[in-house]
Every structure is written in C-alpha cells, then in structure tokens.
C-alpha cells in the first residue's frame, strides 16, 4: 500500500520524531511511505477563523500534493479530521472539486486508527516500563472515532500499565487559536487536565495530537511535575530511547 504521510505543521516544526515514528509504524505494517514535499498546512487555522478563502486555497494544495496515493495518514486527529470531515463541506458548491475532496476524505486517516482499522495491527513488539495515562484529543475522538485503537496497541506494550484518565475525553484547552485568544480560559482547562493527570499517579501521559501534548507538557513543566509527555506513536514505534520527552532537555 502506498501511503503518503501528512506530516502536520506542528510535527514539522516542533517534533520530527513523531513523523519518523509514524513512518516506522507504517513500514512495519507493510506500507511504503512517501512524504510529498508540497505539503504545508491542512488549513485549520484559516478554516476555524472563518476565513474560507484561505482554507480552500490550502485544501486545494493538499488535494494536489496528495493525489495518487492509496492512503494519506496523519499523526494527528485534528488534521486528518479536517480533511475527512470538512474538506467536502468547503467545496460543497463546487461539484468538480467536491468529487476530489470526497475521494481524498475517503482515503485519509489518523495514524493509530489507520494501523488498527485498516492494517489490522493488533500488537506492537515493544517494551516500555511505565504507568501511563492517555488523553483523548477531541478531533480524533469525536470526528474520527479514535478511542479504543491506541489503548489496544498500548496494552500490547510490555511493561506498560495503562491507567484510565478521569475526564480523558474533556478538552485540554488548546483549541488552536483559542489558547492565544482566551488564555485565561485555556489555562483553567489545562489546569483541570493537569490535576486529572496527576491524580492518576501515572508517570507518563500520551495522546495522539501534538497541539494537546505541547499544551499539557507546558503546564506540567511549569508546575515542576515529573511526568513524561509523549506522542503515542513514539511509544508504539519503540523510539522512547531516541528522543527525550516533550519539553525535556535533549
């Protein structure tokens, strides 16, 4: 299967490790992975700010860059989510592009859901001795139904104990531009998330979206919490030795 990796702008800038973990996992699942160079941003910031014109322009760029692959896979529920659920709506008035958008939507997947639901991956052959808790990023959960898949794979990691996070499904307060525009509300939300994480007694917290992880890691570090923050892909790919946790010294 020819898979094109949708890197996401946050992974590109902040944490390439996640991109390489995704590639490793996809190759383990038997895919050939390519990374189209002409990709930049999925258009969420423009779309969610009401700027449909720029959102459409970026969506067209994505349509062009990812044409011809069997699948498009992103290590992010929010980027996969906008492509799957919202690109068709963006082009509702343009039948020719709508067709392409629907077609792209049908072959675009969030990473862990792709591994489990499409590739049929049930286990990973990895060891990581940690008590871990898992935050369900909103778009992945509600737009794409990503819930049991990461938990399924994490349970197969030797030495890993999974503790359910109370309020796992409650938003962490990142919300893209929201955390900039309404910082006090965002702070309250991430503080509640921090309290829930700390209460589990876990020594690591994982999620499938880097925006959430930057937000959560930033808050945990500000309060001196010794809790490791990583993208779930890094753990599943067995790359925890190669890269320090998010926010930790290299």
């Amino acid at each position, binding site marked *: 299967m020819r898979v094109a990796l949708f890197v996401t702008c946050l992974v590109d800038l902040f944490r*390439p490790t996640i991109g390489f973990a995704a590639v490793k996992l996809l190759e383990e699942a038997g895919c050939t992975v390519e*990374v189209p*160079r002409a990709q930049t941003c999925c258009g969420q910031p423009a779309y969610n700010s*009401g*700027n449909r014109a720029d959102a459409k322009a970026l969506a067209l760029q994505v349509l062009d860059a990812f044409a011809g692959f069997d699948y498009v896979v992103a290590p992010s529920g929010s980027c996969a989510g906008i492509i799957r659920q919202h690109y068709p709506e963006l082009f509702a008035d343009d039948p020719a592009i709508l067709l392409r958008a629907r077609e792209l939507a049908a072959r675009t997947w969030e990473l862990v859901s792709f591994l489990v639901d499409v590739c049929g991956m049930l286990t990973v052959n990895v060891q990581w001795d940690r008590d871990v808790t898992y935050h369900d990023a909103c778009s992945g959960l509600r737009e794409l139904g990503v819930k049991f898949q990461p938990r399924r794979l994490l349970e197969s990691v030797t030495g890993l104990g999974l503790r359910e996070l109370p309020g796992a499904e*409650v*938003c962490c307060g990142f919300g893209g*531009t929201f955390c900039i525009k*309404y910082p006090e509300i965002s702070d309250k939300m991430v503080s509640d998330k921090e309290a829930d994480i700390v209460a589990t007694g876990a020594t690591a917290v994982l999620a499938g979206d880097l925006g959430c992880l930057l937000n959560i890691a930033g*808050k945990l570090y500000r309060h001196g919490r010794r809790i490791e923050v990583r993208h779930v892909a890094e753990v599943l790919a067995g790359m925890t030795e190669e890269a320090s946790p998010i926010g930790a010294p290299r």
Partner: protein
Amino acid sequence: MLATSRTFEANVRAGLADDNLQRALGLARTGFPLRRRLAIERLPEFEALRETGRSIKDHTLEHLDFYLEFYEGKVVASGGKVHWARTPQEACAAVLQICRSVGAKIVTKGKSMIAEEVGLNEFLEENGITAVETDLGEYIIQLRHEPPSHIIAPAIHLVKEQVAETFRAEHRSLDPTRSLVEPRQLCDEARAVLRPRFLAADVGITGANFLVAETGSSIIVTNEGNGDLTQTLPRVHIVMASLEKVVPTLEDAATLLRLLARSATGQEFSSYTTISTGPRRMGDLDGPEQYHVVLLDNGRSTLIGTEFQDMLRCIRCSACINHCPVYAAIGGHAYGWVYPGPMGAVLTPSLIGIDEAGHLPNASTFCGQCESVCPVKIPLPKMLRHWREREYAQKLSPPVYRGGLSLWAWVTRRPALYHILVEIASRALGWAGRGRGRFRTLPLATGWTAVRDMPSPEGRSFHSLWAERRKSGADK
C-alpha cells in the same frame, strides 16, 4: 434582559476569580454528565430517538406557518387566546394588557427563558405589578438581583452559604437565630415563604417546553411543582413561548419528552410534566378562568432558511451547557445574556447582534462535546464557525489575529518558502532551547508562556531530516 456580552473578557476574569462560583461549577461539572450517561445507558433506543427527534423538529420548521395556524385554531377552540408578538415590546405589552384587564397586582412566574429574553419582570414592576419568581433557583436570583446563569438551574453559580445569606437578608420577618445551613432548611424556608404568594396571585405566567398543534396545548416540564401551582391557582394563566416550540402531535411530544429529561438532568422523566389546554371547563372545581398564549418571534422567523436554522431544533435541555468545558471554567454569567454555553453562543448573536455578542462564538475550542450530546443533533460547532465566518467577512476580529493568520496562510501557500522558514525557525528555537528543552518565556507568545512553558523544537524540521535521510539512503 440587558446584555453584557460585550465585556466577555472582563466577565471571564471575574468568573475565574470567583471562588464560590468555581466551587459551585466543580459540583456541576461532573454531576450532570454522569447522570445523563447513566440514564442513556438504560435506554437502548436513545440514539434512534435522537434521529427521530431531529426529524420531527426539521419537519415542523419546514412547515412552521401551517403548524402555528393549526395550533392557534385549537387553542381558540378550547377556549384560549393566542397573542402574536414580533418583538419583546409587543410581548410585554400583551402581558400587561391581560394583567390590566383583570386588575392584577401580583403575578407568579414559573421559569420562562422567553420572559427573561423580553425583560418581563422589570417591565411589570415599572407598571406597578409585582412579579414573584417561584422556581427555587429563579426566586433566589430574583432576591439577589442577578440574571440566571443556566437555563434549567438558574442559581447553579451559588453555593449554599450564599443562598442562606440572601434568605437572611430578605426574609426579615423570620427568626434571625434560625439555622440555615443545609439545602433542606433552605428549601423548606422557600416553600413556606412562597406558598402564600402562590395563593395570592392574580395571574400566573409560565413558559412552555413544547406547544402541541394537534390539541392546542402547552407543555411544561418541571420538578418542583411551582409551574403547576402557578398555572392552576390564579384566575389567569399566561404561557410565554417562542414560535419554534410547536410540535405537530402528542406522539411527537412524547418522543421529545423522552429525550428531554434524560439529556437535562439524567432523570427518566421529570417529576411533573403537564399538558395544559385552555381554561377551566364547565364543572371544574379549580383551574384558571382564562388561558392566554403569547407567541414570540423576536428573530426566529429570520433564522429559518439560513445556515442557523438547525438551532431552532433546540429543546432547551442544557446538555450542551452541562458538557461544555468552557462553561465549566467560566460559568453562565460570563456569556452576558439569557442563554449561556454552546447554545447561547449560537443563539445570542442572532438575537442581540454579532457586534454585541462577538466573543461568544470565538470562545470555543470546537471540542465537539456539545454536538455529541445534543438530543436533536444540532451541529453547534458548525454554527459557531458560521458566526466566525460572518465576523471575518465584516472584519470584526482584532487586526493582530487577522494579520497573523493572513501571514500564516500566505507562507503556507508557498511550500518552498515555508520549508525554508520552518527549518530556520526550528534550528533557531531548537538552539535557544537546547539546554532546558523548553522556554519559560517566549516573545510573541506571552499569552502562552504566562501560564505554561513552551517545549522547544527538536532543532531540525521533519522535511529537512527526511530529505537528508532519503539522500543518504539513495547514496548507499
């Protein structure tokens, strides 16, 4: 009701700093979702009923003119009267005219969001008529001169000590040494104080959860019994309802009622669900002699046929409010008007204007929890986004955000340039943050770093590393 939505940011700060509010919100934040989930787990048909509820409402809205006329005919046939009001002023005038016609001095009120919307209590007071709220939460906030902070639990922002303080201050004829510590004592006191008001009222005003076209009936869904005492004891019963409350048949109402209590409080059914049709009949020993319905438009007819039409499906259950993490952080008063939370963020701009309520659709992460719990499947985040589109088109958002986002869009539409800039940024920030792995402060990101650290980039962009890896792979 006077709106303070414009000062949303200040309202938010006040809410976050209010310890009593935060304590009260903490109680509600976990309680409501849990109870709803338990109720739904007991009803396997719930998902299917959501779809049915949605289609009942959609069908009604598509034929709203027919159903309203049919409804009115049935109200009249059962001895009632319908007063059509385009605006809050017309609605208040209709109520006043009815009150004056029976020489009313005291009016009891069951909870009505429409009455809040049109500012009825203030209007009646200005015209020499005393309006007494009887729903416990509404009564408490009436004594405190506060607006409601939730559409079904108006006093949810208060802790019991605040209620006790208010009762001591306002119930001056009672023994000042009495104990007022537990909710039980507060409820008993309210019951005792309000009972004579129920009996003295000339006119009783309620809202309506639904209006039934088939029979010309109004339906109220309560737990306390105050709505029933309000509408049964006085000589006149006035129902205040907006246009979109009408549903075709009793069977349609039954379906929506199954969704309502479970979505609101996690109850199977409310303690009192009452269907009222016209005034007392010949031979009845009790009941009002007159039955009036004030049917309010106030912008609903304009929403039909627009991208906001789906909002008119709302059955005012408050599930979206109860599950919203933003509401749970800031409380209902921050939204500045009658309707808080996600449904308020969609409805308020349409009723009082987007320039007045511009913050509301923006103060959301689009987490989507509201849509997932809405019993009639209103796509709330989509409609919040539509408001943002209108604000963008009208250039209502602050220039610094527009500018920043335009810059981002400009750069990301030029992949070659983008890749260069991202590589430069990741190297620069990666180098600056290499020691600690994170930044305690970051220029241009002070909103973020005021309250949390910013993790440092790894020092190279993914695309540049990938290109290198491919090159070294190709060279092998």
